[in-house]
């Protein structure tokens, strides 16, 4: 964020061509708000604004954002059937937003969404890290 504000890096919005949606990870948003009194809701959205001409929010969002289903270590506990099942709501939510790309700043969410999109018939969905779209949109000197 600091880099973009100080113009240490420059961004070309036209490089992001797919309609993106942003997902708040439970730990960065809701739980940070509850534990530390500040949830990172606005900061990533500001970065989204810098990187894409147009992007959408999912509904519900921020404190009420739907869980991707991959948190709490469920990616590694072996309860895969359940984990895939939890993700159905997330995928429905992304489908409803009309987005072709979902941007997340969390490794668990990233892994989970990539893992389940096929089961829920949304294989064409592109899952990107927040920093990945920054890197994608960089103007290189």
């Amino acid at each position, binding site marked *: 964020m600091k*880099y973009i504000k100080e113009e240490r890096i420059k961004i070309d919005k036209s490089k992001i061509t797919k309609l993106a949606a942003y997902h708040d990870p*439970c730990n960065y948003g809701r739980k940070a708000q*509850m534990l530390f009194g500040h949830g990172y809701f606005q900061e990533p959205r500001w970065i989204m604004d810098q990187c894409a001409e147009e992007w959408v929010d999912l509904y519900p969002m921020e404190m009420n954002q739907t869980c991707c289903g991959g948190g*709490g*270590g469920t990616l*590694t*506990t072996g309860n895969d059937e359940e984990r895939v099942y939890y993700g159905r709501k997330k995928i429905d939510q992304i489908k409803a937003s009309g987005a072709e790309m979902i941007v997340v*700043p969390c*490794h668990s969410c990233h892994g989970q969404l990539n893992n389940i999109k096929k089961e829920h018939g949304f294989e064409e969905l592109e899952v990107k890290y927040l*920093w990945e779209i920054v890197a994608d949109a960089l103007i290189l000197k």
Partner: protein
Amino acid sequence: MTEADKRVNLDQLDHDSCRSWDYSQDFCVTCGICSSMCPVSGIDDFDPRKLVRMISLGMENEAVDSRWPWICTMCGKCEASCPMEIKISSIVRKIRSLRERDEVPGILHKGLETALKTGNNLGLPKEDFEFILEDVAEEIAEEPSFENFTVEIDKKGANILTTIHNKLVNTHTDDLKHWWKIFHAAGEDWTVPSENWEGTNWGLFTGDDEAMKKMSGRIVDHMKNLGAKNLLWPE
């Protein structure tokens, strides 16, 4: 077995067994808002309200032995919606911590043990780690505009120290490149530690506070030893 045989005599339970837990579980009004918010509700007959109720009645052992705390995604929606401000996700974590360590499902505890021993969840030796990083750096350097890109490991006095998620040096090495490219474009002075570089802290998931402290402590040590000014911990 008949229905009556399965009946538990309620006044034989020790309702005080969990009363020292400071999560307000006794204030539950069984409204069920948490259950309606929970992504896991309905699976294996689980819902957060039941779990809170069981803890409040003192049915600790049943909760610890069940799969429920482990199928929870710890997303915290239950807690965010609770009108009585019961710390439901802390309860889940507490119950996870009460499970015998070798009964912790999946690779969570094994990975954590490996990390405590070797510095990362994979048990990846230092040489292999450095090799992978440099390999990825070379790949970046082959791209236009990144010709002179290098990764400086264990550099002292760097502005930013970054940790690495184990999957990025395992199956997803390409995903290492995004941050590095941003650093490069911004002309950032950055580094990666060669040992104990693991950013993921599975103590959070297994409810193991000691391990969590140790893992975080290592990162603090890095900051001190390498004299880095800022930490990037993208977990």
